[in-house]
């Protein structure tokens, strides 16, 4: 993994026992992972009692370095030997490397446990879903078309309107809830109407999309 000089310096400070003893280091690593996984930025993420004695500028530098290192590892799908080698290069001893990698593995271990529970049924479905969850938060970065999250429907029977009487036809009103990832995650509803025959055709088309 290639890390910038600034990130390397931040990690070197994190490896230094004069700044971070083991207890402070362990809390710091947990905070760094948590700050990446939460949906919204938390300004008070570094307001831990263990960090009170530390220089705030150093703390922020180390936080940036740690989170960058974590993101780079996830991005490259780095294995244990790659992460260990990278951390050793910046001065992490074996104990600190182990603490870092153990926390890194917690995500994958939790998902593997879920896989074992569900593995009796629809293994292919679970496999795809687990893979999606594993990289789920990283998937939110990047550009893509608006993403369909949900669908609502309404069945109505039109009796008449202002221009035509005796219509007497059923129709569906479909609303797709769509999230636009490129526009700050704003969501909107896409409405359209269709007849029963059109809905049957649309449903047949969607059934054809299923990859298994």
């Amino acid at each position, binding site marked *: 993994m290639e890390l910038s000089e600034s990130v390397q310096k931040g990690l070197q400070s994190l490896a230094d026992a004069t700044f971070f003893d083991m207890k402070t280091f362990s809390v710091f690593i947990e905070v760094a992972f948590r700050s990446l996984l939460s949906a919204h930025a938390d300004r008070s993420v570094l307001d831990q009692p263990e960090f009170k004695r530390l220089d705030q500028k150093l703390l922020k530098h180390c936080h940036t370095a740690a989170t960058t290192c974590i993101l780079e590892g996830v991005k490259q799908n780095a294995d244990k030997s790659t992460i260990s080698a990278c951390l050793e290069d910046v001065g992490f001893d074996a104990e600190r490397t182990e603490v870092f990698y153990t926390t890194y593995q917690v995500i994958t271990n939790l998902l593997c446990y879920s896989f074992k529970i569900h593995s009796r049924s629809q293994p292919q479905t679970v496999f795809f879903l687990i893979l999606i969850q594993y990289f789920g938060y990283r998937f939110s970065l990047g550009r893509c078309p608006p993403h369909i999250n949900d669908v609502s429907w309404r069945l109505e*029977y039109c009796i008449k309107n202002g221009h035509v009487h005796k219509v*007497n036809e059923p129709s569906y009103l479909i609303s797709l809830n769509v999230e636009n990832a490129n526009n700050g995650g704003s969501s909107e509803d896409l409405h359209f109407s269709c007849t029963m025959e059109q809905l049957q055709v649309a449903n047949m088309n969607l*059934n054809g999309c299923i990859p298994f």
Partner: protein
Amino acid sequence: LSGPESQDHLVGEFGRIAVEFLRKGTNPKIYEGAARKLSVDAETVQHGVEGLMYLLTESSKLMISEVDFQDSVLVLGFTEELNHLLQQLYLENRKEIRHILGELTPSLPHYHNLEWRLDVQLASRALRQQVKPTVTMKLHLEESGGDKSAKVLQTDPATLMHLIQELEKALAELKTTHCRRILRNIK
């Protein structure tokens, strides 16, 4: 229309003009041309055609029966042949006229077509070594005026299965006893 100048073929011609005007909008030049041929005012021709247009649109809107149509035109005092001609004009064109009137109704875009593509995302700038199945869809919609639009959308397999289940529930609802009773009894 019942004046001495009117004849069956003339009424037929006025009826053809009325239906054409309902399809494509009015054209005052037609009135002037017809007025010259008949040696009457353009205004007289206009009133005649507009009267026919109103008769056709109202009859089609209400979808009245042949008997009701005959009863309606009876009060105008036309000949039996003329009444029959008008009824034929109504019956031959009412479906099309109802379709034209239906386009005036405020409505949402309606479904036209759905294209889809199954992809697997392998990598992006933010994340390498991915296996992310994605369904990309192009939903074609059509407005009541004929304007078409296409929306490109994306979803994941889990959401896709949820969409299918929900739409199948929607289709199943039409076959329930409650809905069948409504469709059978409100005609």
